[in-house]
């Protein structure tokens, strides 16, 4: 009757084997709203035939104001502007607007990266850099680590980039030269890359940026 024990041993052995090798089931992948929105952006852009321009930069650099200003307030829909952190917010509404249009071009006013709700890492991993035709890289003040990383990723696409330095009105002439030299060096770009100073307050340089976008890209 010893053979009766074989299936029992078999069952026990399998149960033990399963218990040892079974891995904890992976937690259900919880995508943040921001990650979901970045994915949705990628999907939306794929069907776009128009020229697609991403406006990227630090929070508070002046991206949304610049977009509004250079399109004479006619970009649709208008970007959200505010001095508060995350004025442009992709982190709470999974259906929020991601794309604006003006004169047959698509503008994406990307929220400032490196805030609590918009971590730079999400942009580095999930932003669809390759689905754009051009980048408008807006900087304010000194360059941060996140700027360098995002810029490198945008630059790697081989698409044209225009660097736009905001708050021109708080720089003097010497500082302007110094800032451009320093930024070009830090981002390791030559003189072929467009570099514009502008001020949303005075409007200086804003038209120039739009012209570069229209003619070059």
């Amino acid at each position, binding site marked *: 009757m010893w053979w009766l024990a074989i299936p029992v041993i078999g069952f026990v052995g399998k149960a033990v084997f399963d218990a040892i090798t079974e891995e904890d089931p992976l937690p259900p992948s919880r995508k943040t709203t921001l990650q979901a929105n970045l994915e949705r952006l990628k999907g939306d852009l794929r069907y776009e035939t128009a020229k697609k321009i991403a406006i990227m930069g630090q929070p508070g650099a002046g991206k949304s104001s610049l977009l509004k200003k250079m399109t004479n307030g006619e970009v649709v829909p208008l970007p959200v502007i505010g*001095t508060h952190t*995350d004025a442009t917010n992709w982190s709470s509404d999974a259906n929020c607007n991601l794309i604006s249009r003006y004169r047959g071009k698509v503008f994406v006013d990307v929220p400032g990266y490196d*805030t*609590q709700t918009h971590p730079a890492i999400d942009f580095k991993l999930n932003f669809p850099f390759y689905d754009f035709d051009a980048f408008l890289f807006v900087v304010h003040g000194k360059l*941060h680590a996140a700027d360098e990383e995002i810029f490198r990723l945008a630059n790697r696409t081989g698409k044209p980039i225009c660097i736009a330095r905001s708050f021109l009105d*708080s720089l003097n002439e010497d500082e302007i030269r*110094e*800032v451009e030299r320093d930024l070009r060096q830090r981002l390791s770009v030559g003189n072929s890359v467009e570099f514009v100073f502008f001020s949303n307050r005075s409007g200086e340089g804003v038209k120039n940026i739009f012209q570069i976008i229209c003619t070059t890209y």
Partner: protein
Amino acid sequence: MSIHEEAEKIRRRLDEENSSTVSVALFGQPGAGKSSLINKIVGKKVAAVGVETDKTVEAASYEVNGLRFVDLPGYGTKNFPKDGYLERFNIQQFDLFLCVTSGKLHQADTEFFQELSKRKKVCIFVVNKHDELWEDGVSLEVLEQRKIDDIRSHVGQQVNIVFTSCRAGTGLDNLNTEIRNNLDGAKRERWARSAKAYSAQFLQEKRSACDRYVAIAAAASAANGINPIPGADIAVDLSILVKLFSEIREAYGLNDGFLSKLKESAIPVVARLANNAVKYATTEGILLLIKNFLGRQAIKTVAKYIPIIGQAIAAGLGYAITSNVGNSYLNDCHELAEQILENKLEG
């Protein structure tokens, strides 16, 4: 208490006073204006400022008149990961933290603040570059309130927020006063003595803090009587007085270069006071000042400091002379500082 015990006590007191320091740590994104802010707080250029991007490899530390400022490098960056950051920079040593921001709040700032908050450290938020706060069609008051609401909702606490502009020179008095309000005891005195006064009120506080310091130093000088004063039956420690005078000048930001400029001032009272400040700075000058006082009949001692300096010392002629000499020098420097503030004179 014998005069020897009192003398010992007052010497210790002076040492304490001299060694009390205030440690302030600043954090915030590059370009927020931390270095400019340090320079403005102390009223002289100690930290290098510039528009070019700097790569802070270690915490930069600046020490001025017993105030220590540490510019912390980026929290959670490649070189300074979050793990071990608080221990590495020994954050418990700081009396106070300033979170400096010029644009919007960054993730690292929020996170670092939360760590500080857990450890019950005092942190003041400084919204610098106030002159850049602007939005089409929105008033400054509304923008300021939005900024305050934004920071508070982000960090989830009713934190103190001060608006400053190093370029326009605004809000600096609020900042220095706010920091003072968060310090106490000897540290508060040190702050009032060493931070730059941007208002008549702060200048007055500086005056009170200096008053007390003068009483202690004068008592120590009298108790340490090692330099006999010619023509008088007293001996004082002149080196303590020389140091006291130099501390007073420092407190009011009267360095040599500035003073020689002020001596040439077109405003007569400024030129006269600056002249005094320079003339009495040396040992010879102090002796001269002492002789002035020896000739006078009535010499007052300030009664309110007797508990600090001790009955026996206070009763002596030595202290009467040193405290009066100290106060007269303080008076000159204080008046000069008032003139500087009033006439907006720059060093």
